[in-house]
């Protein structure tokens, strides 16, 4: 009985973690678009902006999971690297386009 409950609890925890990571994926995309618009709109240039983006998004991921969703069992590495590629490319694209045309 205890092992069945334990399995159910683990499944529920796992589903919750998946839901948090899925939300984080989409939120990171939205943040990348916003930051790209801001960076391009303000005519910011150079690699330091990319580094600032990386720090901002990583920090947000940790705050979102640990402080807002209270999911402290999720590793920091998993949170930082979740959707890192798509969000980074999204930022670069939006930044480039707003910089070019605004």
């Amino acid at each position, binding site marked *: 009985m205890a092992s069945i409950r334990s399995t159910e609890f*683990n499944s529920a925890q*796992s589903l919750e973690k*998946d839901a948090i*990571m*899925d939300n984080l*994926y989409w939120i990171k*995309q939205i943040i990348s678009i916003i930051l790209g618009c801001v*960076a*391009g709109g303000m*005519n*910011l*240039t*150079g*690699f330091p*902006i*990319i580094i600032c983006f990386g720090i901002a998004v990583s920090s947000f991921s940790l705050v979102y999971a640990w402080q807002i969703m209270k999911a402290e*069992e999720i*590793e920091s*590495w*998993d949170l930082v*690297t*979740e959707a*890192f*590629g*798509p969000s980074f*490319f*999204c930022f*670069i*694209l939006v*930044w*480039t*386009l707003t*910089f*070019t*045309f*605004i």
Partner: protein
Amino acid sequence: MGYDSDISLIDTLSVMAAAIFTAVLAEGLSWVLIYRTEDYKQIKKNVETLSKQLEREKEKVVTASKQKSQEKKISKTDSMLKNTSQQLNASKMKSTMIIALFMIAFMSTLSSTYHGVAVAKLPFTPISMLQNITHRNLPGDDSTDCSMIFIYLLMSFIVRNNIQKFFGFTPRTPFNMWEPPNYK
């Protein structure tokens, strides 16, 4: 900097539209040839199950005497997960190659259309390796001029990833391209 009058918004939007079109088409083809097959669904389910099993085993707290057997268990599950992930990739291989050939052909056609045309201005100076992509087929030495290929690749990658994520075509695994640092 701002708007460079030599860069046409229509050109840029056309490249982005082409990227979205081909990405949607590629994912549609992938769904027809790969994702909807029973083989793929089964292997994907196995990958997800093994991922969760591995996570549970890593989180388990055991006594010192059971440490070694726990490590063996984790190693075995890890190995099974890697093998199953490789099976998943292998199941996609043939179809992925066909789609890749189509994408390359399309991109070559598009590239010749936009030969010598900058479609954007980069807000940073790319490293020399990246300039082979960002400054491809463009005249002059201004490395912040951006060719259509870079915009096309970015847009295509973003759209394909988001389609895959939205429809759940690819499994969530504990592996990603950045392996966490091992402090042990």
